[in-house]
Structure formats: C-alpha cells, structure tokens
C-alpha cells in the first residue's frame, strides 16, 4: 500500500477510503442526528410540560414522536456504533483497514441524503410521518400522509447502508484478524459487533420487505394489510417486529461491548468470564429471533402464542444477567478509579439493569395488558436506549477520544457532563414508570390532571439532559482544538488491546503489516 495520507479539504471526506475518516464521519453525523432527534424530544417534552394543548397541534405532535424515534434509532444510535466499529475494529484486530474500503465510504454517504429525505417530509403537504416510529398499518398505509412514500424509500436506503456496513464488518472480522488473533482472543467489542452485524444482515432485509409491502398496499392495490382482501393489519406487526426485536439488540450489543472494554481498564483486572460473555451475547442474539410478538400481546393472539412468546422473552434475562454479573464481578476487588468513561459504564450497568427489570415486567403477558402503550413502556425502553446505548456511546467517546485526537479531554467537564446527564436522565424517565403504571397513554399530546406533577418533572429532566449534551459537544470540540497533548500510546494505565499499541494520536494508517498478537495483548 502506498503511503497516501489524508487529502486536503472537503474531498478528503467525500472520497475517502480510510476507516478512521469514515468512522469520524459516522460519529459526527450521528451526533448531528442525536441533536436533531433530541430537539424533537424537547418539543414533545415542552408540550407535555403542562396538561392541555399549549404549543403544538396534535397532528404535529404525532410527527414529532414519530420523527424522534426514527431519527434516534436509525440516525443517531445505529450510525454512532457503526462509526465506532469503523474506528476501532481494525485497530483492535490488527487490520490495515476495513475489508472493503470503497463500499465502506458508500455505506456512509448514502445516510445523509436518506435523512435529508426523511426530514424534508416535515415540510411536505400533509406533513411528515405521523404514525409512530413503528409505523403500524393501516395508520402508515390507508391513513398516512402522501409523504409516506419518501419515508419508505428513505428506510430502504438506511437499510442498504446498514446491510453494506454489516457485511463489511463481518468480512473484516472473519478475514482480517492479525496472526494469533483467534476468535476467542478478540476484544469483546469486536465479538459483540460480529454478532450485531449478523443480526443486521438478517433483519434489515425483513424491514425492507415490510416497507415494500406498505408501498405496494398504498400505491399498487395489494392487500397484505387489508382484511377485506384476506390480509391482516396484524401481519404488518409480525413482519415489523421480526425486524424490530433483533433491532433492539443491534442497538444495545455494541454498547455491551464498549462497557466490557472499559470496566476492566478502570478496574485494573481482566474481564471476568470472557467466554461466558461471548456465549451470552450469542444466546441473546439467537433468542432475539423468537420473541418478537411480545410487542403484540394485546393484539389478539391465540393463548399458545402469548405463552410461547412470554417464556421465550423471559429466557433472555438469563444471558443478560450473566453479563451484568460478569461486569460487577470484574469490578469486585479491583483497583477502581472513576474517570468519566468508567462513570458512564457503571451507570450503564446500573440503569440498564433497571431497564431489564421493567422489561421482565413487560414480558409477563397478562401484566402487559395493563402496561401496554403506557408511559411505563416509554420509561422501560429509554432506560435501555438512553442509559444503555447512549451512555455507553458517551463512555466510548471519552475512552477513545485521546487515542483518536492525541489530546486529553477536560476531566472536570466530562464528570460534570456525566452527573448532569445522570440526574437529568433519571429525572426524565423514572417518574414515567409511575404515570405509566397509573395508566397514562403514550403518544398523546394531552393528559389527565393527575399526571401533571410527574410530567413537569419529566420535562425539566429532559431539558437538563438535553442541555448536558451541549456541554458534551463543547468538551469534545475543545479537546480537539485546545486539549492537552498526550503521546503515551497507552492512554489509560489499565488498558489492554492492540489499539493501545499504536502511537497516540493513531496515525492515518495503522497495521499495514499485521502485528504478531501476544497472548497478553489481546483482550486483557
């Protein structure tokens, strides 16, 4: 390989084939989407600050809940972890780049237009998608605004991006590990991404199938989702959740991987139960394919279906508990220090477990008849999505930012970001458990007076959490421009893994010649 360095100017980013450049673009894009989706959330919380309709029309409120979900899931969380994969997987397995670098660039560059297309629907006649991020038929077919066609094609492009990204990650991990880097020596982040990539290739095409069926029903007269023609609107839910349940593990598994890298570093101990972590991740991925209808307990399934999906769902608690046990045991009797990445990781373990418990409550079919479509569900999945995926993502950025930039972030500001996020997050979502159990329905712009206090708390918490992300942005930008320079390859004294053997900041090309992986340097 030639010593081609980064090109100058904009074309560096447009034409790049470098995994680090592409990773950087994914990370910045996902943060922009995080702010966009977050601003939709701020509108939602502003409207719900008080009972009654104050700020937005119900129709627009529906578009906000829908776009918030879509942008956060497909625009913020998924690309963030793909960006992390791009940056870190080649560094962790000792590969010169991703396996298929040009396709890698393409996977990224189709994302911004897809989201531009999606966001532009808000300004179209009839408004943007208003049927919830799960886009159930017939809300998304018969009763959808005309812009739904753009939404459908937007989802197709996002799916294409994810599938190509995932294929690239699989090919990289399977084919490009340095000599001596056997599967069971791979860092756990690499393992979780390998399994995530498999899930992506398996279910993104099913999502493409679901939106294609919608397209055909809307414009070409088919009757997939029309009982009058012999179809069934519930079919949509089955197809969607066959994608959707593995999707939630696509979102969280890389977060598991991140936390499994960080906790050993700041506990100065090897990860407890490495093998069981791998098997637990694989088990979760397998189970994710046979639990989808637990999202649909109230839709009118036969009792046998309710029971099957209930028991299968509860099984997921077993491998997940194994993971939580391993993280805690890794910390047990370690020499712990609490730098910002560690704070976010410990909060991840604690809060994700809360989300897991509320998930177990929701898994119980008869109880779910009470909880279904209430704020209890909203609280549950925000504990996994925000305190799970986003907290682990924040942890990852603080953990690897010095390696990426060669500069140290401001620890005080990082810790402030953590504590403000932690308080803001819990203030937002913990009360939603209570209003949900008391019966407050989700996705409605108004509510009963008895929910007023908790909703006001939620809204204040949301504004605090939102503001803390601006502090995060400021800290990252300031690190890049004014951060204290460091050149120790091993930024954290307890860190293990190949990424800490290359210089800091990581040069444009690393591992052009594969390293020989020593026993100790793999996953630590």
């Amino acid at each position: 390989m030639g010593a081609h360095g980064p090109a100058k100017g904009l074309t560096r980013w447009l034409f790049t084939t470098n995994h680090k450049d592409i990773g950087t673009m994914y990370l910045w894009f996902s943060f922009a989407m995080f702010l966009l989706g977050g601003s939709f959330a701020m509108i939602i919380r502003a409207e719900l600050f008080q009972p009654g309709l104050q700020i937005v029309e119900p129709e627009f409120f529906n578009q906000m809940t829908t776009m918030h979900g879509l942008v956060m899931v497909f625009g913020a969380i998924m690309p963030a972890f793909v960006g992390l994969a791009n940056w870190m997987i080649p560094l962790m397995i000792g590969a010169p780049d991703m396996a298929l670098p040009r396709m890698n660039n393409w996977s990224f560059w189709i994302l911004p237009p897809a989201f531009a297309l999606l966001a532009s629907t808000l300004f179209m006649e009839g408004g943007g998608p208003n049927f919830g991020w799960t886009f159930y038929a017939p809300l998304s077919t018969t009763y959808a605004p005309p812009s739904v066609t753009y939404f459908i094609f937007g989802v197709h492009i996002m799916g294409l991006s994810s599938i190509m990204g995932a294929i690239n990650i699989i090919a990289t991990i399977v084919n490009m590990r340095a000599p001596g880097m056997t599967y069971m020596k791979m860092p756990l982040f690499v393992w979780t991404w390998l399994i995530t990539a498999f899930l992506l290739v398996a279910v993104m095409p099913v999502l493409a199938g679901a939106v294609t069926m919608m397209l055909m029903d809307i414009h070409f007269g088919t009757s997939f989702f029309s009982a009058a023609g012999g179809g069934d609107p519930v079919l949509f839910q089955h197809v969607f959740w066959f994608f959707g349940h593995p999707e939630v593990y696509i979102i969280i598994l890389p977060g598991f991987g991140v936390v499994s890298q960080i906790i050993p570093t700041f506990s100065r101990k090897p990860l407890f139960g490495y093998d069981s972590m791998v098997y637990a991740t694989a088990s979760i991925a397998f189970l994710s394919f046979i639990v989808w209808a637990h999202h649909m307990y109230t839709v009118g399934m036969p009792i046998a279906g309710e029971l099957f999906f209930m028991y299968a769902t509860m099984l997921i608690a077993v491998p997940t508990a194994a993971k939580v046990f391993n993280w805690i045991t890794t910390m047990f009797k370690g020499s712990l220090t609490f730098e910002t990445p560690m704070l976010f990781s410990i909060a991840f373990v604690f809060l994700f477990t809360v989300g897991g418990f509320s998930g177990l409550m929701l898994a119980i079919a008869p109880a779910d008849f009470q909880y279904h479509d209430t704020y209890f569900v909203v609280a549950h999945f925000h504990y996994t999505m925000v305190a799970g995926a986003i907290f682990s993502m924040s942890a990852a950025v603080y953990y690897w930012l010095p390696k990426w930039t060669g500069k140290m972030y401001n620890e005080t500001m990082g810790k402030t970001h953590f504590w403000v996020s932690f308080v803001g997050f819990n203030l937002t979502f913990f009360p939603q458990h209570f209003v949900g159990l008391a019966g407050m329905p989700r996705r409605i712009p108004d509510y009963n007076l008895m929910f007023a206090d908790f909703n006001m708390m939620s809204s204040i918490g949301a504004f605090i959490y939102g503001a803390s992300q601006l502090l995060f942005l400021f800290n990252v930008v300031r690190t890049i421009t004014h951060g204290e320079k460091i050149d120790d390859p091993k930024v954290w004294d307890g860190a293990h893994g190949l990424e800490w053997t290359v210089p800091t900041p990581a040069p444009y090309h690393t591992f052009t010649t594969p390293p020989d992986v020593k026993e100790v340097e793999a996953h630590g």
Partner: protein
Amino acid sequence: MASQGNTAHEVYYVPESSKLAVCATIGLVLTIFGAASGINDRTFGDPNESTNSWFIFWVGLAFFAATLFVWFSTAIKENIAGKNSAQLKRSYAIGMQWFIFSEVMFFFAFFLALFYIRWFAAPWLAGEGDAGRSNYLLWGDFSYSWPLMETPQDAIGGVANQVMANNGVFSGPERSMAFPGFGEIFKWLPFYNTVILLTSSVTVHWAHHALLHDNRKKFHQWLTVTVLLGVVFVGLQLLEYYEAYAHYGLTLETGAYGTTFFMLTGFHGFHVAMGMIMLLIQLLRSYTKGHFTKDDHFGFAASSWYWHFVDVVWIFLMLVVYIF
C-alpha cells in the same frame, strides 16, 4: 475459512481515495427521489411537463448504472494488475456470500407474509378458532380456501360500492395458477419454468466445471445455454403474467392470493433477471476480453452462487405458491 487471518503477511490492498462512492450516492438518491415523486405524481419546474419526476428517476438510474459499471471495471482492473492478495479475494467472497444471505432474508419476509395469511389470518377471517370468533359479524359468509378465490369483501357482497377495505376494493380472481394435477401437468406453464430453472442450475455448474478444466470453449457454450435458459424463464414468467391479467382475472388487486402470488413470483423473476444479466456480463467478459483463469474467476463464481440462490428460492416458491 482461514481463521488465523493473514499468516503470510502479504499486503492487503487498500484503494486510494475514490469518487465512486459519491457518484453512486448521487445516482441512487436521484433514482429514489424520482421514483418517490413519480409515484405520487409530483412534478417539479414546468407544470405542463408532467413526467419530470420520472425523468429524474431515469437520469439517476442511468448515472447509477454507469457508476456501478465503472466501479466493477475498476475492481476487475485492480485484480488483473495483481493488486488483490488472496486475503482480499476472500473479502470479496465473504461479501458476496453475506449479500446472498441478506437476499434470502428479504424473500423470507414475503414467505412469512404468505404463511401468516394462509395459516392464521385468512382462516381467522373465516371464523376459525378463538381468534376468529367474532369475524362472522364482519365478514358474513366468507369461507377460507387456498387459493383464495373469494375475498372477505366478496363474501359480504356489493364489492363495487364498498370501501371497507383499507386501501381499495378487492374482488377475487376467476382462476388461479395453482397446480392442476398430474393429468394436466404438461399444459401447466410453471412446470416448464421449473424444468428450465433446474436445468440452468446444472448447466451453470457444467460451465464452472469446464472453466476449472481450462476448457474455454465448453465454458462459453454452457454459460450461453444458461443465460438463454434464464431469458426463456423470464419470458415465460411474463407470459404467465399476461395470461393472469388477460384471461384469469388474476391481478395484484385480487386480494391475498393475487398479492402473494405476484409479489413472490415477481421479486423472484426480478432476481432471475438480475442473475441472468450478471451471468451475461461474465460471458461477455470471458468472450471478448478473455477474463478468468481456472484459479481466479470470482466474478463468475459469485454470479453462479447467485444463480443457484434464485434456483433454490424457486423450489420453495414452487412448493408453497403453486403446489401446496
């Protein structure tokens, strides 16, 4: 798969920065935007020119196709220039294999829809089981059989005046494409299509075999036969669609049977057409440029994997769409 990675320390070729991805993005986005606008009858600019959404679509598609052409030729030229290590070739192979897996899952979604309608949704509409207990109130005399010749909307009568359906009115077909029994098998078009596609899977294998033995002439012959069989298959499929629309009253709008029939066979036929074009390109590459050696013929191998994949999908499709 060699699980130990790059033991020989050969150099993995990382291409220089490239305009391909950005060009492909522009092409794809124009295609998608044009299609979405065209379907909604949106126009841009001159209001008298009602086709300009589709103009955007075609320009985008042409640009996209041209970019892919350049992209593939670049990859081929790199290989001929000897830049591709054995490891990089494995990356391409892994990429293609997982792409085919993603295609399998795409078809899976439509098979899932068919099974769900046949095993659950439609019987419930006819009042079967606990789940269907109240449906007789809605859909009156609807009784389930497959192929679904009478839709629930037909059963309650007066279809033309109803908009009970979510998105239109559905009236069942007059005839179906189902298996007519062994007595009539030779008058049944899908039988010929099955024979043709299964044969083509064998001929592409023979072509591969010939290439492995460096027998270029036989390689060309068998590959030509395969491509021609693909053409005939797609032609017969189109003939079947013509028959369905012209003589069977079977269209996309005839309820669940028409929906699943056309969507499954349609996507399959589209994939056959793609596979056929892929094989044709490999044939032309070998015929005009002498590409491929007995040890290095990824383009052909990948296309033949794809061809076997569409063949396997057809077998499932034959069983659940046409026969059972």
